[in-house]
């Protein structure tokens, strides 16, 4: 009964999405207030129905209703309750439902926080989001109904993939989806603007916080996924350039470009067309990601069931959305662009370079991801493009980006004198070079030019970021007042840039200084790795709630002192009789010790994988700082002012004056 209720709620949600997607848009076009007024209530009703559907599916999982096919395939009576709940999005159908729920959630958020927008504009935004929702709900109802019954009802379920039975996987997909789907908001704002045919500074002020928040979620989602892969897959890797990883990475890069581009549009009222285009590309890449993951064209950890009908549907949907958005852009963009002048050396041109580098990086990743598919579909051979390609292309693109990142915040808008900038940066440059040289030259660790460049860039970014803050204090009389006068947005930017520095340190050291060894260890045997002695005390059997495990015990010593006792496991889940390696990690700010069991080799001996990974935590600490920076920036005071209805309405009428006023305040 409950599953049917869920299915019914889904159908009602689809009807509501149709209403939300059509009437407000028509109403806005014709100027009919009543039809525009439908947008908000319809969006909220749709959210309610999708939430009911989601709750029904969650209930079916928690109540172990194995008559529902999706539940039977992805849960088991022994599966702990928390994983039964996260199993809702453990496979294709349910993750689509989560996607739809999050899309509705974002729409409702728009209706709540954008009440001050002109009705015509907000109903267009909500209408466009409704149309996107129509596509996804139709997809779900047509090809991937999560409520389908399974007759006869099986006695027990097939259980969730053991890899997914992990706390990291409980939150990784929702975070990632929040980011993916969140890009639908700037997309809808962009489409609404194009439909309206005018673009003013107010548009950017409305779009920026939404883009920032979506980017924050995407950052956290990607970082969580990387962290999960690191400790769960047992390989000690943190990024594989897997096509599905790329699918989330491309929108992230574009969203980051959009954030920087919107900064120019807001402050200098230029790059408007480019902002709109980036907003369209960002969401298009999100949809492309969905297509790649859900259609089964990819060989990947993430690829769920293969079904050609699904692939065709998503590809059509993708084509329609991207095609119509780009057509609209081509038709209307001349109405919204306006050129503002700026010099070759100015913050504008530096941010433009940032955008070019990020977009080119996204394009090369797209090439590497789609090229094998293209060759395969043309029957030109089966190839795969692996990490060497992505590293060879991506790293050279990121090095100048990180270098320019140090210069940007210290450069004036519109026009900067080369000499002045040079004298401002001289010290920072000198310190970076000397410190990197000292770090590489004076320590005993084997290192290379790349290590020196990486560390030098990290110092450079850190120093210049702090210098930019310090520069704000130079003219202030009262320190406290000066501090308060600095907009939160500026602190957010600084935090995010420091996050980049932390990340660069992590990547540089973890990828160049890691030590790895696969060894055969007998009980009582030991192996020394990077100054740590790993003593193997044998393997014993233990039981978990829905698995049994061979658990090894390894004590790690350094200069005779016990550092850590690690318990790596080899688990067997009886329902899906595949073994699962559960690595044991001793985490630390400057190094991780990582141990994974291989196979039993007889006489109690095992093959064991040992890793010493310096600074690997910094790889996730960096994105965490970036995300915090994004949140701080999004909570900047002037975005909150937008909520004050009257004021925003007035501001909307005089974008130019506002732009000038802002400049004065800078």
């Amino acid at each position, binding site marked *: 009964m409950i599953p049917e209720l869920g299915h019914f709620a889904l159908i009602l949600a689809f009807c509501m999405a149709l209403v939300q997607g059509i009437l407000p848009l028509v109403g806005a076009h014709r100027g009919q207030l009543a039809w525009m007024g439908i947008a908000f209530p319809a969006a909220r009703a749709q959210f309610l129905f999708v939430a009911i559907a989601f709750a029904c599916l969650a209930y079916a999982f928690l109540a172990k209703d194995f008559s529902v096919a999706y539940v039977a395939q992805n849960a088991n009576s022994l599966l702990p309750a928390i994983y039964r709940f996260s199993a809702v999005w453990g496979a294709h159908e349910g993750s689509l439902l989560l996607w739809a729920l999050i899309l509705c959630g974002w729409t409702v958020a728009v209706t709540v926080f954008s009440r001050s927008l002109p009705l015509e504009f907000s109903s267009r935004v909500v209408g466009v989001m409704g149309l996107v929702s129509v596509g996804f709900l139709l997809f779900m109802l047509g090809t991937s109904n999560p409520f389908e019954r399974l007759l006869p009802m099986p006695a027990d379920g097939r259980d969730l*993939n053991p*890899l997914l039975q992990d706390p990291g996987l409980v939150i990784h997909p929702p975070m990632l989806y929040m980011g993916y789907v969140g890009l639908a908001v700037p997309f809808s704002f962009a489409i609404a603007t194009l439909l309206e045919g005018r673009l003013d500074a107010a548009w950017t002020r409305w779009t920026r916080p939404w883009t920032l928040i979506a980017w924050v979620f995407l950052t956290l989602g990607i970082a969580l996924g990387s962290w999960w892969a690191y400790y769960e897959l*047992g390989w000690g890797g943190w990024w594989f350039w897997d096509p599905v990883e790329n699918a989330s990475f491309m929108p992230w890069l574009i969203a980051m470009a959009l954030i920087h581009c919107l900064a120019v549009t807001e402050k200098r009222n230029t790059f408007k067309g480019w902002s709109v285009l980036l907003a369209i590309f960002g969401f298009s890449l999100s949809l492309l990601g969905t297509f790649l993951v859900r259609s089964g064209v990819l*060989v990947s*950890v993430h690829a769920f069931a293969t079904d050609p009908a699904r692939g065709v549907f998503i590809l059509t949907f993708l084509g329609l959305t991207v095609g119509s958005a780009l057509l609209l852009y081509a038709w209307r963009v001349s109405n919204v662009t306006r050129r503002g*002048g700026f*010099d*070759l050396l100015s913050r504008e*041109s530096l941010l*433009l*370079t940032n955008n*070019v*580098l990020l977009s*080119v990086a996204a394009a*090369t990743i797209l*090439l*590497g991801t789609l*090229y*094998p598919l293209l060759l395969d579909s043309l029957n030109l*051979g*089966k*190839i*795969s*493009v*692996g990490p*060497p*390609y992505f590293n*060879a*292309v991506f790293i*050279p*693109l990121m090095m100048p980006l990180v270098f320019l990142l140090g210069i940007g915040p210290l450069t004036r808008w519109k026009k900067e004198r080369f000499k002045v900038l040079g004298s401002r940066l001289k010290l920072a440059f000198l310190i970076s070079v000397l410190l990197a040289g000292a770090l590489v030259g004076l320590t005993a660790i084997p290192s290379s030019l790349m290590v020196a460049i990486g560390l030098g860039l990290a110092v450079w970014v850190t120093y210049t970021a702090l210098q930019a803050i310090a520069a704000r204090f130079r003219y202030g009389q009262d320190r406290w007042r000066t501090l308060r006068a600095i907009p939160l947005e500026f602190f957010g930017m600084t935090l995010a840039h420091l996050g980049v520095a932390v990340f660069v340190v992590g990547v540089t050291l973890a990828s160049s200084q890691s030590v790895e060894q*696969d*060894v*055969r260890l007998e009980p009582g045997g030991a192996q020394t790795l990077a100054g740590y002695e790993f003593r193997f005390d044998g393997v014993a059997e233990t039981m978990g709630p829905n698995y049994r495990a061979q658990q090894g015990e390894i004590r790690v010593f350094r200069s005779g002192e016990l550092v850590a006792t690690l318990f790596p496991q080899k688990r067997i889940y009886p329902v*899906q*009789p*595949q*073994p*699962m*390696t559960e690595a044991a990690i001793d985490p630390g700010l400057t190094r991780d010790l990582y141990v*994974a069991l*291989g*196979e039993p*080799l007889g006489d109690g*001996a095992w*093959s064991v*994988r040992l890793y010493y990974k310096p600074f690997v935590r910094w790889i996730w600490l960096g994105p965490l700082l970036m995300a915090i920076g994004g949140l701080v920036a999004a909570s900047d005071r002037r975005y909150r002012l937008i909520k004050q209805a009257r004021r925003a309405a007035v501001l909307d009428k005089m974008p130019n004056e506002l732009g000038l006023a802002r400049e004065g305040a800078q």
Partner: protein
Amino acid sequence: MRRRRQRMVLVALILAGVTGATALAIAAIGQNMLYFFSPTQIKAGEAPQAHNFRVGGLVVANSIQRDPDGLTVRFDVTDNLNTVTVAYRGILPDLFREGQGIVARGQLSHEGQFVAEEVLAKHDENYMPPEVHEALQTAESGGRMNAVAEDNP
């Protein structure tokens, strides 16, 4: 006029950057793409020597051998028509077992052994790498009447 010239310089710089990146990408893709060959194709001499590529197929039953050091493993991979021996030093993935479809990346040695740097078995027991699936089908439709039936339902 000065402004226009500056704009032209900017455009030229961006163009040069994008061209450079494209060249980089194309060169990198040419050097780093990995072709896939089935055991039958290797037998026919289609696979390159001294160049990395990927091979895939089913692990032949009772073909897994371990060297005394416990870490070097040799096993046969088949497309039900021909087999190739794969040598790998290290820890095999969790899902590696007899009858399972796997993909290995590495080079062909002079003795005709495939020396793998990496062995992949995917994270689902029912999952068959598409290349392996296709290689099996090609082998099956290759005209052999006595092709071994696929043991995957």
